[in-house]
């Protein structure tokens, strides 16, 4: 196996773990962590493809990851603020219990 495949497999596993956590856990914070993991897995792909790509001097992969880290930081801040607001309203962070929009 070439190194590139190793990084891609690592990234795929991280993405799957993040997805599993986001889909199965009940706590909103853990769901957010799962989403962060998926974002990070995508970042790893960008860096790996940049390093093994044909034009590493273009820096596109690195730029994408830098912006992605910025977006992820903003996402985490807003997401956690939302969770705190939800907690204040419902007194729980359990997503199964926050279902007032259910028909």
């Amino acid at each position: 196996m070439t190194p590139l495949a190793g990084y891609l497999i690592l990234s795929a596993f991280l993405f799957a773990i993040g997805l599993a956590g986001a889909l199965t856990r009940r706590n909103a914070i853990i769901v957010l962590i799962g989403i962060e993991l998926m974002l990070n897995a995508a970042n790893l792909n960008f860096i790996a493809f940049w390093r093994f790509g044909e034009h590493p001097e273009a820096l596109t992969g690195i730029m994408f990851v830098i912006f992605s880290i910025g977006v992820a930081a903003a996402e985490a801040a807003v997401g956690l603020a939302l969770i705190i607001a939800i907690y204040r309203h419902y007194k729980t962070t359990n997503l199964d219990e926050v279902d007032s929009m259910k028909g």
Partner: protein
Amino acid sequence: MGITFTIIAGLTIAAAVAAMTLRNLIHCALAVAVTFAGLAAAYLQLDAQFVGFAQILVYIGAVSILIVFAVLLTRGGEPSQEKVFSAASVTGIGVTLAVLGVLTWAITKSAVIQRDLPPQPEATVKQIGDALMTKYVLPLEVIGLLLTAALIGAVIIAMRDDVAADVRRRNKNSPGASVAENPPPHVGGYNN
């Protein structure tokens, strides 16, 4: 594939699994910090120094701390006795396995993975800075705007309702005065 990469990958995946399965939320947050560190190490292995250090600075220094604070503010620090996984967990696992299968299949079938490691590319901080200020200046500005909006938005969302009402009332009475400038009077006549 070197032994360093194997160790890093193993640690990262183990920490990620721990972050998604542990019962105590603080343990989850600490485990996810280990995952972020493992990813930073992977970036460094791929000769992306700047991104690796930025990853540590942003994810371990800020996002992990933010998660930990959120856990404590929502009283998630105490281990609860209720179920960890939600009702739809079987469907979730199924979807995950399907995604993982497709991804693995795509990776192993792809022709890209046959490529060998090219010589170490030049990605100095100077180059990155130049690129950020020339070619990517518009995305940079947009990111700046986004971060500012996120900052203000997070503050407003997380603000307690009574504080928000207080601010609104004060602004109606005396424009320009905010909560911080008029703290409640102290009993002891003590000026800081």
